[in-house]
């Protein structure tokens, strides 16, 4: 069965900390995505990647960066965490073509205190 695994289900960090959210997929998918989910705002795209070492900004990239050194792994980095980055973070992957569905991880609930 296909799988997207996010390293932590819950994470609590302090303001100013550097935070790494890890995501691994076992489907050999080219595309990987990071979204954040907030009540009333739905899912908003932070960054996506269509190949190793390639990345594109989504709609809300400010305060975030990403890394994709290997095809199966896509990391989201909060350089200096702030309280407004408290959110549910969802990773997803898909095959390269635009009509393919996304497979999602279970999410990481990040709280920044």
């Amino acid at each position, binding site marked *: 069965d296909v799988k*997207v695994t996010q390293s932590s289900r819950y994470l609590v960090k302090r303001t100013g900390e550097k935070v790494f959210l890890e995501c691994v997929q076992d489907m050999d998918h080219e*595309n990987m*995505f990071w*979204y954040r989910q907030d009540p*009333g*705002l*739905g*899912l*908003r*795209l932070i960054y*996506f990647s*269509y190949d190793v070492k390639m990345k*594109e900004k*989504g*709609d809300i990239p400010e305060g975030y960066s990403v890394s994709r050194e290997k095809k199966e792994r896509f990391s989201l980095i909060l350089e200096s965490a702030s309280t407004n980055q408290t959110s549910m973070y*969802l990773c*997803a992957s*898909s095959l*390269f073509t*635009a*009509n393919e*569905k*996304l*497979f*999602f*991880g*279970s*999410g990481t609930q990040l709280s920044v205190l």
Partner: protein
Amino acid sequence: AQSVAQPEDQVNVAEGNPLTVKCTYSVSGNPYLFWYVQYPNRGLQFLLKYITGDNLVKGSYGFEAEFNKSQTSFHLKKPSALVSDSALYFCAVRDGGENTDKLIFGTGTRLQVFP
């Protein structure tokens, strides 16, 4: 730029009744449209998609959706709701006219099915 709207925050329906969850979209090219469902404390699961062809698309768990180009809508439907259908539903769109893999989601509609 592509966008998608879900005008209802919540939809309430009695078990056994038909349900509709609304979605409208805006793209410059041909739309690729998707519905996803999120059960409590879970990630999103794919329900169905429209790429081309028949305007009525059938998906998982008895759901279907109707693509209406003139109204730029892609409403999710089910003839007879179950209590277990209670969840958060998201509509999403990719712009087939743009050279991008960006998938944009709506704000979500919470479906509550009462026994």
